């Protein structure tokens, strides 16, 4: 019989927003992770020495994706709960599961949230920016937040529940979903969106012909330079320096 009910899991969900607090180079997210689960470890273990050992056991190196690491939080809580109830789980098992789950979860989270979902939302926001031009220009930023968090928050809560109720079986399920296939499709959609937005901003806005030519050439050259591994920071400065020099020498 699970000790933690839905209300407890909801509180854990809110506490999980502080996972990154105290991030340091020694133990990474250990402080935040301990903060999230400490009150519940004290509820599982009645003996103060066992409480102390449980908290210290979880104050070790941990680093994973902030959103998806809730699955590890749920799993660790479930295992500690079983261990406290005399379920015969060794303390090393808890640490091993935590460590082994962290890497794959981090990779999946980075690939989905940072490399796919956030850029797609930023591009969609750009489309809304043109739609709201002339009035309510604050709407795109709000849409950015709503769109991103409409996926982020439910996933964050869902993986916590699944981690707690299904433990490591949940990770097996995630592997079977073949998330990479969906990410590939989202990337293709993103490319189509970029081509559409670039075409719209250059050809359907009131630029002079010379400005349109400049923009097309600039986009193509930037893309090629980026493919040749020139960093975006260098290109950013290239534009600025070019602009300053051309202005100073009155070429433009």
């Amino acid at each position: 019989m699970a000790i933690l009910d839905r209300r407890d899991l909801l509180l854990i969900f809110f506490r999980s927003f502080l996972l990154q607090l105290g991030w340091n180079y020694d133990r990474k997210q250990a402080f935040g992770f301990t903060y999230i689960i400490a009150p519940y470890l004290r509820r599982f273990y009645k003996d103060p020495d066992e409480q102390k050992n449980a908290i210290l056991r979880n104050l070790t190196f941990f680093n994973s994706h902030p959103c998806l690491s809730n699955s590890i939080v749920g799993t660790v809580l479930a295992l500690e709960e079983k261990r406290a109830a005399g379920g015969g789980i060794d303390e090393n098992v808890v640490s091993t599961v935590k460590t082994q789950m962290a890497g794959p979860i981090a990779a999946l989270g980075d690939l989905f949230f940072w490399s796919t979902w956030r850029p797609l939302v930023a591009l969609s926001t750009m489309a809304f920016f043109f739609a709201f031009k002339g009035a309510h220009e604050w709407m795109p930023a709000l849409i950015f937040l709503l769109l991103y968090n409409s996926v982020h928050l439910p996933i964050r809560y869902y993986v916590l529940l699944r981690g707690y109720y299904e433990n490591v079986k949940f990770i097996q399920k995630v592997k079977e979903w073949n998330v990479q296939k969906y990410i590939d499709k989202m990337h293709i959609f993103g490319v189509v969106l970029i081509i559409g937005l670039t075409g719209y901003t250059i050809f359907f806005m009131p630029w002079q012909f010379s400005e349109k030519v400049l923009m097309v050439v600039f986009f193509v050259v930037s893309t090629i330079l980026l493919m040749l591994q020139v960093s975006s920071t260098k290109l950013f400065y290239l534009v600025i320096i070019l602009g300053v020099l051309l202005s100073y020498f009155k070429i433009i």
Partner: protein
Amino acid sequence: MFVEALGITAIAAFLHLDGSYFGQLMIGRPIVVGTLVGILMGDIVIGAKLGLAIELIWINVIPIGTTFLPDVTGIAFFSVFWILSNGKLDTGNCLYALALALPFGILSQQIDYWVRKQNSRYVQRVEQHVNNGEFSYIGVLITHHLFWLYIIRLITYLGIIFAGKYLLTLIHSLLPITCSVNYDTVFQLFILLGLAVTFNMFIEGRAGFIDKLLGRTN
């Protein structure tokens, strides 16, 4: 002027914490910070455009493992603040503000780097208190830590915006430029750069990308 700057900086410093320390709700992203600072300073369009451009240009900088990001919140905040507080909306002003925002963004990042090194002390203090059976100190230390993170960020941002304003005035006087190209065109170029970065990110490492696009499979 100082009170207005303090108020806007207080908000920007709070929003920065979302990216690195709590939440990850994306309220600290350039697109949001740029728009918000634009609203507070009276020109939403400039703030939103710059925020969008900075968001896309550094969209491929991802917090994987121990990699350290440039302070994109700071870059958006500094550039929009300097452009709109100057009172002179021209291309020269915009170019210089953007040029200065990046190195100060990197300086701000270094402050973050220093803070993260100090954070180990919090973990040691937690260990000490837990060993003594003082479990409630975990919550106390979290609150304490959050408060100091905010204060450090606020002081950093305040220092940078005033130092930057002074430097911009100096640069304008040493290297005055007038540009016939409208600042709208310049912003558009930055947005196009951001689109190129995002395009490259989506197709990077995809040897069979064209095949995938055309639905060809082996």
